[in-house]
Structure formats: structure tokens, C-alpha cells
């Protein structure tokens, strides 16, 4: 088998994640989908690093993970405060620029 399939898989996962972001209303699930997309990217990077035979791809993936972690922390915090204020985690409820 050709390792290119990893890339195809990554693409597939990324697309699924993106679609999920678009069709789910629950902020948490949306977030999970974003994570999914990030992971897909990571997979791609790792595969690339294998392709080129150096570790830079892995480094990038590593950084991605860190950033993702930070992002999740902040994002979840936002979700929690949102939930506190309007007692729902639906992204559609936050359709106005005010509470």
C-alpha cells in the first residue's frame, strides 16, 4: 500500500469535521469537530514528515497540538460562560451581538 492513503484519510477526516462544524448547533460538539479537523491536519503533517524523511512535519504537528490545547481551554471557558449567561450551549442562540 502507498502511504499516500494516509493523506486521503486525513482529507476525509478534515472534510467530515468541517461538515460537522457547519451542521451541529451544540457548541461543544462544534468544538469537537474542530478538534477533529486539527487532528486530520496533524495526520497529514506526520505523513509528510515521513514522505520527506525529516522531522519538521512532526514538529509542526507538535506545535499544532499545543495550540489546539490552548484553544480548547479558552474555547471551553467561553462556552461555559455562555452557558452561564443564557443557559444553552447552542451556537445559534448567540446570533446577536448582545446578550
Amino acid at each position, binding site marked *: 500500500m502507498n502511504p499516500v492513503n494516509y493523506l486521503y484519510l486525513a482529507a476525509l477526516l478534515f472534510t467530515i469535521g468541517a461538515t460537522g462544524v*457547519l451542521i451541529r448547533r451544540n457548541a461543544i460538539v462544534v468544538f469537537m469537530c474542530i478538534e477533529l479537523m486539527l487532528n486530520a491536519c496533524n495526520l497529514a503533517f506526520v505523513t509528510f514528515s515521513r514522505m520527506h524523511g525529516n522531522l519538521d512535519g512532526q514538529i509542526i504537528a507538535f506545535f499544532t497540538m499545543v495550540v489546539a490545547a490552548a484553544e480548547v481551554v479558552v474555547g471551553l471557558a467561553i462556552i461555559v460562560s455562555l452557558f452561564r449567561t443564557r443557559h444553552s450551549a447552542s451556537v445559534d442562540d448567540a446570533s446577536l*451581538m448582545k446578550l
Partner: protein
Amino acid sequence: MENLIALLIAAPLLGAAVLLVGGRRLDRVGHWIGTLLSFVSFVIGLALFADLLGKSTEHRTMTQHLWTWISVGSFHADVTFRLDQLSMTFVLLITGVGSLIHLYSVGYMEHDERRRRFFGYLNLFLAAMLLLVLADNYLLLYVGWEGVGLASYLLIGFWQHKPSAATAAKKAFLVNRVGDMGLSIAIMLMFATFGTFAFGPVLSHAGDTSQGKLTAIGLMLLLAACGKSAQVPLQSWLGDAMEGPTPVSALIHAATMVTAGVYLIVRSGAIFNAAPDAQLAVTVVGAVTLLFGAIVGCAKDDIKKALAGSTMSQIGYMVLAAGLGPIGYVFAIMHLVTHGFFKAGLFLGAGSVMHGMNDEVDMRRYGGLRKYMPITFITFGLGYLAIIGFPFLSGFYSKDKIIEAAFAKGGTEGWILGGVALLGAAITAFYMTRVMLMTFFGEERWRNAPTPSPAEPSVEPAAETRGEHTEPHPHESPKVMTIPMIVLAVGSVACGFFFNLGDRFLHWLEPVTGHSEGHSPVSTWTVTGATLVCLVIGVGIAWAQYGRKPVPAVAPRGSLLTRAARRDLLQDDFNHVVLVRGGEHLTRSLVYVDHTLVDGVVNGTAAGFGGLSGRLRRIQNGFARSYAVSMFGGAALLVAATLLMRAV
């Protein structure tokens, strides 16, 4: 002496200004001020007349230049007055009859709380009319021309609370405006042709230009004359004009203003002499109106409208005469003057009758009034005899001359016109006798007068004035009213004979109008005989119809012609259907067009932008996810783009 000319106009103008601006504090003396000033003007006229008589024939034209009115490039209009025999005649007629009618109005309008204003308007009219006849150029004449139009508008609509009066006034002004349009176009033509519109140059150079232009000018002048003198096809306003107080009808719509058209034609004689086609048109208009008015006069039961019809037809005589050219000018003016006397007298008589019959105008509710108001009866009778052309009364002379002149035109035209004139004489005799009989003879139909039956549509707008049906108590009018009637009666008896004595009038007017003896195919005596025969026939028929058998108090349905004549030969209906209705539809549709089309384009554009932005706004719905979709779509497009770039 010339400087007096301006005073002729100034006096009544001053009166008008004082009375109209003065306000209520003048209510008690206003009418006397007006009368006084008109008499002043009359006296000045007499003085000037004496002065003129003193001069030799060729020096009988005075001019007075006041100031330059308009001067732009070659366009030059002066305020200059010209007093010659023709205008002198008019001045005397206007101021004389005018003053008498002022006097009469003092009594007639006694119980009207707006009498002061009435006299103000009368004075205004005198001023405008004098300006009309004294002007030295057509533009200044135009000022007077519209001025009298304004005065008659104000006076016809004097009882403005009556919608019919207001409507009649508006109608009169509008129809006159159509005529004025003709006059203004004529003036423009003159300016374009001669570079001026002053009487002197235009009339002296009339021959120098092309036939077509002259004909055009002539026809435009004729249109103007038709409007002012109530000639077919612009005659429809005169009948309604009877809505005004009777003195107004006597002064404006019988004696003076309506004859302005004749003045215009005679004054522009030089142009018409050079344009035979225009002349022919004038004669045709005159002849048609002559018959038209006479027929209408036969059918009316409203005494004033009957007289209005007769006015129309008499002016038809004058216009006919004026159209005959140098043969007829003098006689046109002569008939104008005599008509001024007797028609004014007749109207004043009618007014006196109405005065005594608490404003009843329907002759079918008169009858047997001769013993109640003898003076009115006598004066009215004399006027009657004069108008039907009873031998040796004024109408006899002037009308005969016109008939002769008509025959003298020669050719088939001559025969036709003469015949029409004769026929007109017969009809005149008929309807005037009818009026006479219905009013002063027969049994007294005004006792327990029945209410008008709704079956017969009363076309005379005076209908609602016969409000209460208290039985009238006919009585003679006060002196202040009868004296003018007497004077006018004397005039209508005498002036014809006086004028004709040694062709005075002819020689007086000849230098201005020019005169040529037409050779008539039939001898003078034949014409006279024929006229008298027609007269007798007319009177006889009338007697057979209204003298012998009693007059029904309610008008019988009558023949088709009668009914048509009652409705002014359907001319009003024609106007209503074609002009009024058509105009209403036109304006209404235009308003619609303006709102939907012209304005719609603008509003449409605006609405288009509004809708577009509204639709665009809907995309910004605030949902993070739909924004995400667009972002994602955008990303997809970017990928596609890069791929394409790679592929290319």
C-alpha cells in the same frame, strides 16, 4: 386738449381704485362716487367731442403719448392714446350709456350690501373699455381687451354665492381667453411681419405683405372678435352671462363690451380690405350668428336670455356689415350705436320688470304688466319698436342700411347674405313681439304662479333664484331707475333719424373707416319694402301665437327645433361632452401618468436599491454557522482556484 384723453380713463380708474381699496367706510357714499366719476368721464368726452367738431375733418385725430411701456430690441410698445372719430363715437357711447346705467344701478342694487364693490367693478369696466377703444397699438388694446374680460368676469360672478353665477363668470372668462389667444397670435404675427403693432404703421403698410399672412392675421382677429362679441362658435358664454345683475347685462353684454369685436374688425379694416378671404369668413360668421341668435331668442322663456339671444343676432348684423368692407363699416358702427341705445333700454326695462316681480325672470309668469308699470311699458315698447326696425325709429335706419349693404356686396354672396339678413329681420320681429306680448299683455299669469314642473328641464341657471313663491306685487320702479330708461328710449327713438339726417354719421366716420357706395342689384326702396314685409310677417306670427290664444304658464314641450333652441342649439352640450368631459379625462389620465410613469421611474429606482440591499442584508443573519459555511465555501473556491492555476 389731448391731455384730457388720459383723464377719460383716469376718472373711472380712480373710482375703481378708491371704491375697491377704500373698504367698508365708503359703503354709504360709494355708489355716488362711482356714478359721479363716470359722469365726469362723460363730460370730458363731450368736451373732447366738441373740440373734435371744432377741428377740420383731417385734423380730427389726436394722440397722447404717456410713457414707453415695453422696449426690448425692436419690440416697442408705447402707452399712447389715439382719439379719432371712431374712438370718439365709442367713448360717447360707453361713457353716456355707462353713466345712465350707473344711475340706474343706484336704485337697482339698493338692497345689496356689496353695492360699493359693484360700482367699483363698473368703474373698472368703464376704464378698461375706454382703454380698449383709445389704445393706439394692438398690445395696449389687448390690455383693455382683457381688462373688460376681467370686469365682466367680476360682474357676472357678482353674486358669487350662487354657484351658477360663479360658473357662468368662469365660463365667460375662459371662452374670452380663447378669443384673446387669437388676438395675441395676431399681434405676434403683426410683429413678425411688420416689426410693430402700432395702428399707424401696420394699417398703412397692410398692403405690402403677402396675402397669406394678412389672411392669417385677419382670421386671428376674427377669432378674437368672436370671443368678445359672442359670435359663433364662441357665443356660448353670453347666455350664461345673464347670471349677472341686469345693469351689467345692459351695459356690458348688450351696449358696449360685446361690441368690442366689431370695433376691432372695423379698426383693422385696412387688413381685412387686403384679405378678402378673411372678410368672407367675417361675413359668414356674422350671418350664421345672426340666425343662431335669433332662433335661440325665439325659444327662451327667460326674458334676459331672450334678450341675450337678440343681442347675439344684432351683433351678428354688425359683424356681417363689418365683413362687407368699406360698404359696411359705417353702418356696422351706426347699428352698434343705435343697438347700444335700444338694447340697453330693453335690458333696463327687463330689469325694472324683474325688480317689480321680485326677480322672476320667466316670461311665462308675467303677463298684463302694462297697467302696473306704465313707464317701463312705454320705454320698453319704444325700444321694442326700435329693434324690430319700425319705420323712422333708429333700428329701422341702421338695419336697413346693413341689409342694403349685404345685397350690395353683389354676386351670389350678396343674395345669400341679404336673404339671411332679411330672414333675420323677420325672426327679430317675431321674438321681440313674443317678449312684448308675454310680458305686458295677456292675462296675469303671475297670480298663484305654479311651481315649475320638473318634467321640463329648466336650462336657465336663474332657476334657484325663484325661491319663495309669495305672489309678486308688480309695481313701478323708482325714479332713479326710470329716468335712465326714459333717456335711452328717447335715444333709441331719435338717434337713428338724427344720424341719417344728411348722412351725418357717414361723413363723421368716413375719414377713419373709409366708405364706398356699393351698387345694389335691388333698389333701396325694394329693400325697405321687403324689410317691412318681413317685419309684418314676424309680428303677425307672434301675435297669432302669443297674442290671440293665452300663453301656457308652463312651457309646452315644443318642436325639436324649439327644444334645441332652448338649449342654445345644443352648443353647450357639445362643449360639455367634447371639451369639458374630454378635458377632464385628459387631465385625470395625465395626473395618473405623472404619478405612475414619470414619478414611477424615479420611485422604482429607489425601491429597486432598497429591495436589493434588503435582500443582501438577509445574508447577514448573525448565525455563526452560516458565516462558517461561507468561509468554508470560500476556502473550497480557493482550493479550486489553486488547482486550476496548477492545471493551467
